Structure formats: C-alpha cells, structure tokens
C-alpha cells in the first residue's frame, strides 16, 4: 500500500519499465491546493516528489 497521512492519492500509472509507480497525492479535505506528482518504486522504495500537478501519464 502507498498512502500519505492526511492525503488521498489517485491516478496510479506504471512506468514503461514496470519498476516505478507515478501517482497524484492531494489534501483529503480538499481545502488545500497541494496536488503533487509522486513516484515510488514498485517495491515501495525510493519515494520522490516530482513536482506539482495531477493526472499524469508517462
């Protein structure tokens, strides 16, 4: 499971090589504009924030 306290996630996308997941996190209350594109290894390692944004594909 990949989650973030106080946030929801959406739009998971596998990387072309299948090693990484790209997804969007955002404030679960909807009051903050904190949409972020994040990646994480399929094994749960190397979490990173890519940039602001949502609904991504690669």
């Amino acid at each position, binding site marked *: *499971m*990949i*989650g*973030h306290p106080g*946030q*929801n*996630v*959406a*739009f*998971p*996308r*596998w*990387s*072309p*090589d*299948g090693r*990484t*997941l*790209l*997804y969007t996190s*955002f*404030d*679960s209350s*909807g009051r903050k*504009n*904190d*949409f972020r*594109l994040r*990646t*994480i290894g*399929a*094994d*749960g390692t*190397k979490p*990173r*924030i*890519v*940039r*602001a*944004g*949502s*609904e*991504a*594909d*690669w």
Partner: protein
Amino acid sequence: MTRLGLFISTLIAALGLAAGAGSATPAEHSIVFATGTTGSQGRPTDVFVRDADGTVRQLTRTAWYEGSPSWSPDRTKIVYVSARGGDADIYVMNADGTGQRRLAGSKKGPQDQYPAWSPDGKLIAFASNRNGEEDIYVMRADGTGLRQLTKNAIWMEDQQPRFSPDGRFIVFSSNRVAFSNPELYRMRVLDGRGLVRLTHWGSGGDLSPGDDLMGDYSPDGKRIAFVSDRSGSYAVWTMTRTGPGSAA
C-alpha cells in the same frame, strides 16, 4: 453524496495548483500531466509535459479545463479531455501541443472522460454518459468507428478504462453491484463481454469505505495498480491481474 462522489468532486474542484519547481526527476521518460492555479489570479487546468531533463512545456492554454492526458504508444501524440466546447470532450494533439482537434463529443451534452490509448495505438477507450449512464466506449484513434462496450442501468457508472498490455482486455471501475462501492472489472475489448469482477471490497453503505478504482496494468500484464480506501483513506495498491490485492 457517496464517498466516491466526494472523492471525485474533491479532485475536480481542486485540480489546480501553482506550477512550482519540483525536485530532480526520477523519470527517464517525459511525463504529461495537468495543473492549473486557483484564487483570484487563478488559471484553469491545462496540459503540460515535463521532459526528462526537468524542462516543463505548456501544451494547452484555454479558459476551460484541459486534463486527463495520456500518451500514444509511440509518444508522438497525446489524447486528453477538453471542456473548451462547453462540456468534456475527447481531444488529441501532437506531443508538442500542435494539431489540437476534437475526436469525440459535441458542443453541448455528454461528458466524455478518462481517455486511454490501446497498446497498438489503433484504439482509444473512454467513459461517456452520451447514452444516459456512464459507460465505456472505444473508437479508432482517428475518432471513427465508435463502439459502446458496456450498457449500464440507471445511476450506474463505468469509469477509468485502461487497456491490458496485449490489447485484449480493458480494466475499469464500476458501481454496478453496489452503488456506493465501485469495484474493478475486466472485459474483452473485442465485444465488451467476458466480464470478470477483480475486486470485492466494501459493504455498499453510502459513507462506508469500499471503493476500488483507477486500475492500471503493469507493462508485463501481471499486476494491476489501483486506488482503494480499504485502509481508511485513498491509497495506491497493487494486485495480480486476476485477483485480490497485495501491498505494493
């Protein structure tokens, strides 16, 4: 409003954010994404590309929502949703933002959403309420040959179609069994038949957890990543292509 409705409406309402600088990209490929800004100086959501070197290019620039982008398999085109015509329609453009044109939809009427390209680049699947309820459709990549793959009863919604890597199946979310608890299903692209329910989660209660949605096949077709609130909040899970989830 159901939990799913609240989740989606939160997404739609808040899809907008200052396009600030990010950390170094871990991606070897360009990422196409949507973002906008809110507030008195806010801008509606547009489509951008972040290249592997970190360069960000804005591809659309309208006063309406432009989002839900998806690369073509050869990465020369992007299919996306635009509300420039008055409602959500399916558009396509070249990877540099030129050649924007509508593939499906009309100026007033149905909402077409969640476009996804088939692995061979010949088909585009999407969700639409053009015949009343929200169903899954496929069309050729040039917008011709529209076929309706699912036909729902009233209030039922099929959403977020994604092709399997071999192009034979589409995974999608549907609340056809329990209105407030969408689950993931798989069907054949050929005829929309061979329906298989992939997830079984939730009580069906309006505000109870139980949503499984936004499935995406891994490139080898062996696993599906999806969003679920089975842990109490919406998180990304993965499972085998045929069965219940295991933690990513």
